[in-house]
């Protein structure tokens, strides 16, 4: 059987490709912002004296890190409506990605905080700063500088894993591929092109964020 690859049939869908890319990147941006914010709060909670808070955060991290993303997403999108919590597909996808990234971000930021020398907090105390200010002004910036590459890696992983949100009919890049191949039956070519787009996005994202990091943490990063 002679098979000819035919990419020409894909050109007419350029607009859809762009829309799908925008949805994928938009979801990733929202999840990154919210996920890292929760990550900071969670990592802070792990340093408090409240044992219940610490255990709550630990349980959350373990539950998320030891279950597949797709199951978390199905639970949110299909499971939660039956207890009266109804979300659109896009909201459910954003929530699932946020919850997932947050668990990894807590672990990463916690490690970053632990790597900051104890003398830094002590110096802050000796200057009369309140604990909250020590955390925000002294510990957090150094922790971020320590683990910035790991956070960039996790954000990229979240972007790649978001391909699964097409399964609850969010019109992301992968969903665009599903749609096109159902029309032209050129499954392989369509998925190949989309895979290459993801590859370019992932490589560019790492480059750009690493570049931004060099500017942000100039002189701090080790």
């Amino acid at each position: 059987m002679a098979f000819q690859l035919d990419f020409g049939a894909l050109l007419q869908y350029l607009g859809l490709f762009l829309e799908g890319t925008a949805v994928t990147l938009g979801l990733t941006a929202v999840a990154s912002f919210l996920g890292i914010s929760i990550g900071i709060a969670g990592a802070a909670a792990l340093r408090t004296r409240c044992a219940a808070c610490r255990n709550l955060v630990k349980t959350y991290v373990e539950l998320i890190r030891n279950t597949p993303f797709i199951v978390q997403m199905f639970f949110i999108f299909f499971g939660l409506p039956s207890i009266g919590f109804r979300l659109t597909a896009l909201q459910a996808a954003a929530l699932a990605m946020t919850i997932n990234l947050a668990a990894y971000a807590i672990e990463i930021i916690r490690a970053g905080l632990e790597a900051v020398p104890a003398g830094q907090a002590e110096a802050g105390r000796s200057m009369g700063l309140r604990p909250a200010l020590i955390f925000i002004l002294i510990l957090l910036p150094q922790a971020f500088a320590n683990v910035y590459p790991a956070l960039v890696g996790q954000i990229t992983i979240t972007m790649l894993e978001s391909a699964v949100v097409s399964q609850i009919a969010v019109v992301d890049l992968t969903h665009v591929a599903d749609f096109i191949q159902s029309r032209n039956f050129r499954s392989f070519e369509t998925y190949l092109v989309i895979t290459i787009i993801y590859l370019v996005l992932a490589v560019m994202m790492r480059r750009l964020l690493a570049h931004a990091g060099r500017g942000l943490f100039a002189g701090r990063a080790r």
Partner: protein
Amino acid sequence: MEFTTWDIARNLLLAAPLTLLLSAIAFAGGGLVGLLLLVVRIGPCKWASNCVMLYVELFQSTPLLLQLFLVYFGLPMLGIEVSAWVAASVCLTLYASAYLTDIWRGSVDAIPRGQWDGSASLGLHYISQLRLVILPQATRMAIPPTVGFLVQLVKSTALASILGYHELVRTAQILTNATFQPFLIFGLVALIYFAICYPLTSLSRDLERRLAQK
């Protein structure tokens, strides 16, 4: 026909071995391919080493879901008809091999240069150097992250459901369509995955701690 909670739980528990089987195949196959790739990656041939690097990069920078689609739709174009089961096994094997090669290369890199030089001065050839001196030392370091990766692999097999392979998630979808109890079903599925993955996560952490104490 009425489904009791026990019927649902029983059907899910019956599907769990298929998730484990797919994980085991991908891990064994990926380990084998990964070992071969490792030998090339850290070998003397620069060109071949770069090819393996590119292979690893491709798998780590594209979504697993699309890798699955490419294998599932790509192999038939080469004249090989595959079932969802075969496509998932092949794809996850390649996926695992890329990650394992990368993890193991990290362990080999951590071996001091002197070990290579020392074994070379004894007149050992590249393969003997690896087999007798480098790999035995690197293995100890490689075990904790390898177990950690196994957790990632078990979770990754969930995507085989999208191709239609009847593992845990696919079974859960079918049960949901029959019973309209998604909250219970996906909650149970999450618990089953947790029961598989959490012991592995703990094991990996313990091994790492023990290694650090030595």
